[in-house]
């Protein structure tokens, strides 16, 4: 219960941070460094939190988290209904499916995996939007934004995962991933 509350707070804080502080920071960086492609970018902390949970919790619990995080996310933006919940749900499912075959042993692999999941989420969100005619021509117009999001969020993943591990440690959660590894003798 303690862990659920802790992650509820983290999830809410992640949305607040990524829509205000981090978004603002990237605007300042874009202006200061003369890199316009950074304008509008942010670190998708909510998605990273979901990826972390999908790797460390049981699948059914995480899928609930995916819906909750996506639903709360819709309060922070104006994407079409279900864009975040459906894409987050599917990302969580993908992570859950891959969990047993993954060995995220260092920061680089964590960053690459997180970047790949950001890409999957973008494809799901924009793809579904395009199919449903909510976002016409999304991919051809947004590919550079997607690349930026993959790089930015992927790079931030190791740091955010460390923070989440600390939250787990403080709230006394036992990682499902660690438990599975122990049971399988790894």
């Amino acid at each position, binding site marked *: 219960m303690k862990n659920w509350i802790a992650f509820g707070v983290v999830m809410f804080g992640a949305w607040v941070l990524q829509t205000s502080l981090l978004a603002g920071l990237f605007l300042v960086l874009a202006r200061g460094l003369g890199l316009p492609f950074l304008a*509008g970018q942010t670190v998708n902390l909510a998605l990273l939190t979901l990826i972390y949970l999908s790797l460390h919790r049981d699948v059914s619990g995480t899928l609930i988290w995916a819906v909750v995080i996506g639903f709360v996310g819709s309060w922070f*933006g*104006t*994407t079409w209904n279900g864009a975040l919940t459906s894409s987050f749900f599917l990302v969580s499912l993908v992570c859950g499916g891959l969990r047993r075959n993954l060995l995220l042993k260092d920061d680089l692999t964590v960053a690459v995996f997180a970047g790949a999941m950001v890409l999957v989420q973008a494809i799901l969100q924009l793809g579904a939007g395009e199919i449903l005619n909510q976002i016409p021509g999304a991919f051809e117009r947004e590919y550079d934004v997607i690349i930026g999001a993959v790089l930015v969020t992927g790079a931030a993943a190791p740091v955010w995962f460390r923070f989440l591990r600390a939250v787990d440690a403080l709230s006394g959660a036992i990682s499902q991933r660690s438990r599975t590894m122990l049971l399988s003798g790894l």
Partner: protein
Amino acid sequence: MPRWIKPAVAILLLVYLVIQILSFRSQEKTRLAPAERFVMVLASPLQNMAWSAVRGSVNVWQDYIRLIGVSRTNRALYDERNALVRRLSELKEVEQENRRLRGLMEFREREGLKLLFAVRIASGATPYERTIRVRRGNADGVKREMAVLHPGGVIGQVVEASGRVSDVLLLSDLNSAADGVIQRSRARGIVRGSGLNELTFEYLTKGDDIVVGDEVMTTGLDGIYPKGQLIGRVTRIEKDGKGLFVSARVKPSVDFSRLEEVAIVLEKRE
């Protein structure tokens, strides 16, 4: 023998001695006397040490002890400089805010619209949506589909309004559109968001007079944006060749990434 002889001889001897000494010191010495050499050999290291000590003391005084004060002064000046830089930065911020607010005030007077100014407080949830959140909501009279403007041009429209905050869909969002017209030739079309800081001007017919640099304005026919607001300038014309229509790329007149204050149109003039 008279009494004055003795002193006179003594004076003469003294004069002679002085002259002798003077003449001896002025001669070029080619060789040192052994005693003198001995004294020099013995004295020179001591002299050197003493001189070095003095010189060292002077250096210590000049380079260290006196610099303690200089260092303190330097620190004070550095702190003062930092405080001044901070103050200058604050004043620049105030000056810029003042300029922006004055621009908004002049804008309100110029356009004759009932405007409500709002401060941006956040961006959209993901990078794929171009929205901003502003600190004005239902409680301030803000409703959905109200146009949002800036002295520089059109920003977008309100898509969600709650108690004290509203979400504004920027014109650059893929879901945004506005009825537009080329100011010079009155060629009409639809301006759509194109993702990044770019818009597309669609459904222009092949015969329409349009050139790069033309200003695109709102027509007011979409029922959202007031007539005559600047949207942007044409940067590229794309002629398909086969289709009936021509489209153009438009650079928005407002840099959406720099938005801090916006004006919500509460009432349009008739």
